[in-house]
């Protein structure tokens, strides 16, 4: 009797486990299929195309010629540099403004529930619509910003902010920060509300100032959220397309051309698929290296400070 039971049990266990595996794979199959067809296969195809001179007419294998041409072009390295500058500046501003915003919205003042709602609109509308609004505000003839600058006597004449290189770049940054800030703010706010009240009370009893509590309790406690928002935000900002495309299409004279804009122009507007694909591959490699480096760096910092 006992012998039978002992042999039967593991068999049943095994069957159950097998079916659990099969069941799990069945559950994730649709998601995998979607990603395979819409992301993985196009990615493989992009890599293949990057070694060809594909256009609408046809394609020939050209080896690494696209890459060689790309890396030899000083303009391309300018674009790469600009993209990283764009990313670092915009993400830093988003995190800083988001942190300030979250702190304000977290303050115990009457009306905070309303303020929390008012921060949401840029996040919950189509990005392109908000950017069209900014495009209007930046125009020189009757735009709000030019008008205000004149009103306050900061400039003599009308300024078309999107028409000169430097101002166009920083205008695009401001708009990008505007698009990204609400989400960052709300995530930080949510994290702040998750911090245990006991910590604050203990510090308060010890006579810690508000600034001290912010620096030594709030910031360390929400650090995991800051860190993950920074990475996500960096990836999105690096890939940000609509904002620049609607404001300037990468102009004037390339001043706002980031890698993604450059890729779109070459691949889609000019239909030079091979060269465009090479640029796309560079984007993927740069972003993947950046993410890995970021995670590695984080890991080291964490170990160094003995954080969890």
């Amino acid at each position, binding site marked *: 009797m006992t012998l039978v039971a002992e042999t039967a049990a593991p068999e049943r266990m095994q069957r159950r486990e097998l079916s659990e595996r099969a069941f799990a794979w069945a559950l994730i199959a649709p998601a995998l299929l*979607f990603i395979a067809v*819409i992301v993985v*296969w196009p990615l493989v195809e992009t890599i293949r195309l990057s070694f060809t001179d594909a256009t609408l007419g046809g394609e020939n294998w050209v080896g690494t010629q696209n890459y060689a041409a790309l890396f030899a072009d000083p303009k391309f390295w300018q674009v790469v540099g600009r993209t990283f500058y764009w990313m670092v500046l915009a993400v830093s501003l988003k995190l800083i403004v988001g942190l300030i915003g979250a702190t304000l919205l977290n303050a115990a*003042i009457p009306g905070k529930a309303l303020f*929390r709602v008012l921060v949401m609109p840029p996040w919950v509308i189509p990005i*392109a*619509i908000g950017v*069209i609004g900014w495009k209007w505000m930046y125009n020189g003839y009757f735009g709000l910003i030019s008008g205000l600058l004149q009103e306050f006597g900061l400039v003599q004449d009308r300024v078309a902010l999107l028409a000169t290189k430097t101002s166009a770049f920083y205008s695009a940054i401001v708009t990008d920060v505007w698009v990204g800030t609400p989400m960052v703010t709300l995530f930080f706010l949510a994290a702040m509300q998750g911090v245990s009240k006991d910590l604050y009370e203990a510090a308060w009893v010890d006579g810690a100032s508000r600034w001290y509590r912010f620096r030594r309790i709030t910031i360390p406690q929400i650090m995991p959220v800051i860190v993950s928002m920074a990475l996500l935000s960096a990836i999105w900002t690096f890939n940000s397309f609509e904002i620049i495309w609607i404001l300037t299409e990468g102009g004037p004279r390339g001043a706002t051309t980031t890698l993604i804009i450059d890729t779109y122009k070459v691949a889609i507007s000019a239909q030079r698929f091979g060269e465009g694909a090479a640029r796309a591959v560079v984007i993927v490699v740069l972003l993947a290296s950046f993410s890995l480096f970021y995670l590695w760096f984080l890991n080291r910092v964490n170990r160094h400070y003995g954080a969890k």
Partner: protein
Amino acid sequence: MQIDRLSLLQKIGVYIATFCFLLFILMPFIEMLRVSLRPMSHLMTAEFSWWSEDFSFQAYRDMWKTVPLLGRYIFNSIFVASAVTVITMIVVIPAAYAYARLDFPFKALTLGGFLAVNMFTGAVLLIPLYRVLRSLGMLNTYWAMIIPGVAFLIPTGIWLLRSYLEKIPRELEEAAFVDGASRLYTLRRVVIPLAIPGLIVVGTAVYIGAYAQQFLFAITFNNVREIQPLPAGLFEFVGYQDTTWNELMAAALTGITPVMIVFLFLQKFLVAGLTAGAVKE
């Protein structure tokens, strides 16, 4: 609580800072409203001024003639975002359950793979994506906007929903198993009903993603005006010498109003959901 109390001066400071912050956030909307309420002739000729006597709602009447498909654009936007959300949720719910509850080979690897998808936007993959959609016969149809939209929202959906499902006590499922229920039955009749608050939050987050980012796929994969979503439809009117900005702004504001109203009702869920779900780790 006493610890949170601010002195009058501090309160004033917080209000002023909050006002500045919200002004930055809301400025484009205020400006769009201001522009939409003024006659075009006044906007173009007069010196900049905050206020003028000739506010009118004329642009809100004329816009239907200038942008004849405005109603369609609004519908298309909502339709595409809704379709993306429904399909995404159908795909995400089982997958998130598998990652939350089951053990299987390559679990960590495939989950990492899903998250890595976040590194790509459609913009990087447009060329082959164009060919995929063409060979599936989806170019210039709603599907051209829906299918890529779904693919790029699946990872976020799985990630968010997984952390909700992990919080549902296992005992309830085990009780169902003991009663002889199948896994699928348990998922349908025990897990999903319990997860409804989480599903609403994740669904809302997916909807926001789908609604906010309809531009790129629409301008690249679709050139049929009648099915263009709002941002792509209105973009056509931007940037010309004779753009009637007041009507464009009126159309933009009208276009975003329906969804905005829905979100005003859902915002409690959303903020609560962020607190509970995304911040957990």
